């Protein structure tokens, strides 16, 4: 058995970042923070090739966007470049009143460090765009080909027009998947120079006049397993979906879920067909059905789902779990983690069979990432 020295959770909240650490048993946790107290930390993520290198998106309605970088596992931080300037003529997208509206940078939702180079990071921003740094976040350049993928037809949803998911294909360095709220999923096969919509099979009869539209679907999250990156899983606004061909066609796998609305979706570290979602009652009632916080697990890649409840509140629970607030570790027995808008962080050291609150009263949790440390 591989001996692992520890787990580090990177938790972004409405009022700062928290770092939770435990040894490989994952029984006892220490919490450090708040880092950047008072600021919204939409996302933190470590480099897969240098876990001590962590990037964080720090923002505030008052003082705007900053990017922070740590080179010592989150003990100390340095502010980095924060100029996110859309490339070329800024262009327009649809606005709420049907007119065209210029792209305006608001914040960074998601940071995705390269799988091979600690200096390279992708940033998903609102208004939806994809940026990249190749100098450790000193400077950022847009990959504008994404907005050519019918960007004029995109329009913001209630949460803003955000690019919230970036998946890098470990088997093909040219391939990048991204997802944008109220626009859909997109794929690049040329390292981000151009993108195409990959939304065939998605159906949004309650949100779109054309339920099969090429763009406009409200994708909440997509996920893949690194051993089989052509298989994608999606939590859409409504519907849990699966694609076996890199997004060329999606099929619904919601089946016996109590609600197929939700935000995060994730894949077991060692079982590519084992996936997790958090059913939420509806788009207007962002809390679990029946006041019971239940993670649902499918061991068949969707289609058949089982509730996981041991250690989770089963009455009077009305929190939400946001799209970036679930993560899995890669210890032999896969650990799963998620954070809630009520400020709890739950951990499971047995693939979801049982859960324990490892933080109970943080600010509303926006994101959870996990690092499995050697």
């Amino acid at each position: 058995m591989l001996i692992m020295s520890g787990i580090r959770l990177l938790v972004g909240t409405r009022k700062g970042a928290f770092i939770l650490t435990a040894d490989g048993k994952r029984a006892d946790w220490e919490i450090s923070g708040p880092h950047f107290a008072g600021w919204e930390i939409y996302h933190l993520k470590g480099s897969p090739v240098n876990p001590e290198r962590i990037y964080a998106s720090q923002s505030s309605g008052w003082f705007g966007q900053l990017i922070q970088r740590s080179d010592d596992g989150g003990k100390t931080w340095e502010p980095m470049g924060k100029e996110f300037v859309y490339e070329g003529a800024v262009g327009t997208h649809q606005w709420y009143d049907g007119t065209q509206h210029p792209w305006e940078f608001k914040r960074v939702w998601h940071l995705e460090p390269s799988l091979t180079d600690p200096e390279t990071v992708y940033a998903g921003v609102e208004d939806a765009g994809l940026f990249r740094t190749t100098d450790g976040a000193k400077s950022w350049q847009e990959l504008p080909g994404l907005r050519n993928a019918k960007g004029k037809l995109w329009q913001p949803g209630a949460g803003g027009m955000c690019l919230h998911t970036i998946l890098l294909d470990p088997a093909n360095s040219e391939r990048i998947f991204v997802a944008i709220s109220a626009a859909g999923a997109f794929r690049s096969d040329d390292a981000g120079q151009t993108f195409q919509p990959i939304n065939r099979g998605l159906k949004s009869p309650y949100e779109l006049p054309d339920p099969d539209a090429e763009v406009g679907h409200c994708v909440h999250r997509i996920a893949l397993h690194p051993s089989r990156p052509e298989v994608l899983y999606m939590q859409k606004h409504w519907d849990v979906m699966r694609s076996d061909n890199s997004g060329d066609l999606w099929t619904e796998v919601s089946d016996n879920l109590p609600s197929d609305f939700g935000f995060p979706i994730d894949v077991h570290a060692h079982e590519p067909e084992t996936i997790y979602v958090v059913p939420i009652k509806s788009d207007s009632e962002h809390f679990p059905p029946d006041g019971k916080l239940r993670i649902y697990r499918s061991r068949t890649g969707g289609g058949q789902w089982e509730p996981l409840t041991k250690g989770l509140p089963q009455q009077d629970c009305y929190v939400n779990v946001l799209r970036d607030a679930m993560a899995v570790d890669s210890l032999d027995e896969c650990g799963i983690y998620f954070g809630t808008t009520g400020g709890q962080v739950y951990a499971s050291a047995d693939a979801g069979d049982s859960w324990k609150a490892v933080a109970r009263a943080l600010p509303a949790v926006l994101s959870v990432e996990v690092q499995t440390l050697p």
Partner: protein
Amino acid sequence: MIRVVLPVHLRNLARSSAEVQLEVAEPATITSLLNALEESYPVLRGTIRDQLTGKRRPLVRFFACGEDVSHDSLDSLLPAAVASGAEPFCIIGAMAGG
């Protein structure tokens, strides 16, 4: 020497004390004060005014000599008491929310 009072989040970012002192060439304006501030503390670029447009961020306010000068032209001269250092120029995070 012009005195500038920073809100707590910006002084944390700048790793400064609550009040900083700046050399600003005469005649001093809000713009030249902000230029000097950002030169001394580059991390503050973009936090007070938009990096591209130069406009004051919507929830940042400027107070001087007991007056809200947020809506004054950025090129207007600072009050004499601020320019002389007798009074501070205050950068405020506006009240927002409930």
